[in-house]
Every structure is written in structure tokens, then in C-alpha cells.
């Protein structure tokens, strides 16, 4: 099992808390951001192996966050999972999971992303 550093981006603190709990069960290190802008600020100062993001958020939504990440050399290949109730127009994420999701499915997909991390 690959253990990774994962950034969870969602505007609902209770949802972030639950995703953190699920991911920490597998030993991952989890950081949280409450919208896209906060996520970019965090990523400027920290390395992560996987981003899990919501789409509809205040200040900066998930689609804009993903575009910004893909446009930067450092994060162009960073694995991204979208967790959203209405994941429209998200073509450049590695995986889209619909809310509500099964915790076991999220753990499996996170592990798979970390194994096949394209950045090598």
C-alpha cells in the first residue's frame, strides 16, 4: 500500500473531516483547503501526491483549480480526483467520483492513483 500526501479541497468542513478520516485509515497524510484559492496557496508551499477536490466552491471552484494546476509545470501531472454531486464539464481530472460515494471506493481509488502516479 502506497502512502501519500493528499490535499482535500471542499467548502464543507464536515465533509473534509470525513474524507480525512477515511484516508487516514490507510495512513495517508491529509491536508485540507476550503476552496481552490486556498488549495493553490497550500500547493505553492507544500508538495502533495494527490488532490481530491469538490467542484462548486466559493472564491475559486474545482474546475478553475484543476485548470490552474494543469497549466503549471510543477503540477501538470498531479493526480486529481473530483468528488462532486454535479461533476459537469470536468474533463481534465484523472477520475470523477459522484457524491455520495462509498468510503471503500474512495480508499481504493486513492491507492490506485498513488501507485500509478504519472510523475514517477
Amino acid at each position: 500500500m502506497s502512502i501519500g500526501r493528499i490535499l482535500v479541497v471542499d467548502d464543507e468542513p464536515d465533509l473534509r473531516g470525513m474524507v480525512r478520516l477515511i484516508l487516514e485509515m490507510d495512513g495517508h497524510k491529509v491536508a485540507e483547503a476550503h476552496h481552490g484559492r486556498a488549495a493553490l496557496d497550500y500547493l505553492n508551499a507544500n508538495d502533495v501526491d494527490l488532490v481530491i477536490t469538490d467542484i462548486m466552491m466559493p472564491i475559486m471552484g474545482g474546475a478553475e483549480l484543476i485548470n490552474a494546476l494543469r497549466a503549471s509545470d510543477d503540477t501538470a501531472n498531479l493526480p486529481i480526483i473530483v468528488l462532486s454531486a454535479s461533476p459537469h464539464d470536468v474533463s481534465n481530472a484523472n477520475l470523477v467520483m459522484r457524491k455520495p460515494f462509498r468510503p471503500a471506493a474512495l480508499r481504493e481509488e486513492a491507492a490506485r492513483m498513488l501507485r500509478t502516479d504519472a510523475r514517477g
Partner: protein
Amino acid sequence: VSTIDRTERTVELSLEDLSLAATLGDSLTDGLILAGVDGRIRYLNPAAKRLLGWPSTSKEGHVDVSAIPVDRATIRRFATAKRSWVAEVTLDSGGQATMARIAFKPLARGGRRVGSLIVLVDRTEVLAAEKDRDLARENDRAKTRSLHLVAHDLSGPLTVLKGYVALLQEGKLSLEQFNGHVPVLVAQLNQIQRLVQTLLDTARLEEGRLELQLTEFDLVPFVNRLVAVMALPESRLRIVVAAGAGELPVMADSTRVESILRNVITNAIKYSPEGTLITCTVACVGDHAEVRVRDEGPGIAPADLDRLFRRFGRVGDVKMNPAGVGLGLFLSRQLARLHGGDLTAVSGKGQGSTFTLTLPICKVA
């Protein structure tokens, strides 16, 4: 030149032309005008007189087409056009603007111009109907959008609830660990309940049968309690009870007032950077109690500020009303107004936002 002129003048609309026009014209609902080559009107039907705002007794043969109450460019075209044309115009029908379509056709006989035919179609009702249809369509789209937003806003708390229950079922959480998360689950259930309440209230409002449950209570401890249950980080929220406020008794629906303030405070939290202050001021202003919620967020552009209180309005396509299905601020304002108060916002790009709820104060006996 004068020879040609004389020749053209000798060719005129025939009596047959005019009597045919009169036979048709009297029963037409569209305006019909026949003019000679000199521009003089030879015949106009009752509908044309009505559309032009001319008295029904006005006589043909004495008026020129240039008297038709329309813009100068159109008048010029009456005189100069060699071919048929159609134009949308505004007629000044006796001081009242009428949207009309004008169809112009030069009439010729034996290769010679004998006059012109002008048809006037009243477009007022058609245009009004089109506008109604557009509005209905926009309303439909807005309702569809709101359905998406309802689904989205419900899916958040549902995801948390289903997640914890699944962890319990899968044996990833012991019952004891699960119990530790019960307050979070209760918060999600309350959130779902608030969303359902918002939907119900909005529907009732639309049907005009939303009723307030009024009781008398003091606004100061009420706001303090609300802020406490919203469990904000202490560093972020400051409550200011303005001098002279003391007791602020209001006659209000406490559930609805809570929903309004919760909505406004939740927005302030979501739309301002972490670590910035949210100031909640409770004061007595004139004969009104006032609760002001000020944040130090990015602020709202004037154009967006206006959209904020519309139904289904989310500024800049982002999530504006966490507990509100895009209905939150719309409903909040309507609820405040039902109380005889109001909910207003003041903001500007880069200046933070201030939302103000006013409620009438109960007269202390």
C-alpha cells in the same frame, strides 16, 4: 423633366383600384393605405386610422404620406423607394407608441408607376406575447437550475451521513468511535432539514400563504446563542452590542429570524479568507432593531449585488448560499419584509460586505 412629370401625373390609381381597396380594407384588422404618385393618400381603412391615431372622420385625399407619424428615414423611403420593403417601426399613434410592421409596395400598371400600397401591422400584442414567452422560458430554466442546486446542496450532508454509516457497516469504525461522530451527523440532518424548510417556505411564499409564527423575544441573547451554536472559531467572530441597545425586544418568528441570520453568517464565513474577522453588530436604530454582519472578504461587485437577492441567483456562478439552494438570500429578504423589516447588503470589490437585517422593535409598555 417637366414633360416626364406631367406624363407620370396623368397615370393614377384607377377607380377600380380604390373601390377594391375599400371593399377589402373596411374589414381588415391591419392598416391599409393607398397613395398616389404625388404622395397624397387616396384611401386608408379604419384600422390604419386607428393605428395612426387619426380621427375616424379624417378624409382621404387631403393628407400626404409624410404625415404618417413615423421616423424621418421611413418617410423618406415612402417617397424614394422603387421596390417593396418591410420595416419594423414605432408609430406615434396620438401620443402613444405603437410597435408596428410596415410593408411598402410600389404599384405599377403597364410599366408605369401609379402609386403605392402601404400595409400597417400592429405588433404590440405579438411582441408582448413573445416577451411573456421569453419570461416564462427563463423562469422554467431558473427552476431547472434550482433543481440542480437542490440536488447538489442535499448531496453534501447526505454524503457525510452515508459515509459514516458505511464506515460503521464495514467495521472500519467501532460503535464507540461512531458515537464520537454523532454530533457531526446531527449537524448534517439539521442542514437537510433547513434545506427542506427553505424549499417549503419558498413554495409557500410563491403561493402567498407563508405565515409567520410570531413571539416576543430579546434579540441580543438570541444572536449570542445563535452564534454559539454555529460553533465558529472564536478568533473569527466578534459580537458587538452597540451602546444604548440594552434590550431589543422584537415580535418575530424566531425560526425564520434564525434562518436569515444563519444564512448571512454562513455566507460571510464562506466568502472571507480564513483568519479575517466577521463582525456582528446588534443595535437599536430609530424604531428598528438592526443586526449587521460585516466580513473582510473580497466584496461583491455592484452588478452582482443586485443579483444576489434574486431567486436562484448565485453570483459569478459560484456557490453563494450554502444553506439555500440559491434561494437563501431571496427567501431571507422576503422573510424579513414579511416581518415589516428588510435585509440589505452594502459592498464593493475589495471592500468586504455588510448585510443588514432590520426588524421592527416591540414597543415596551
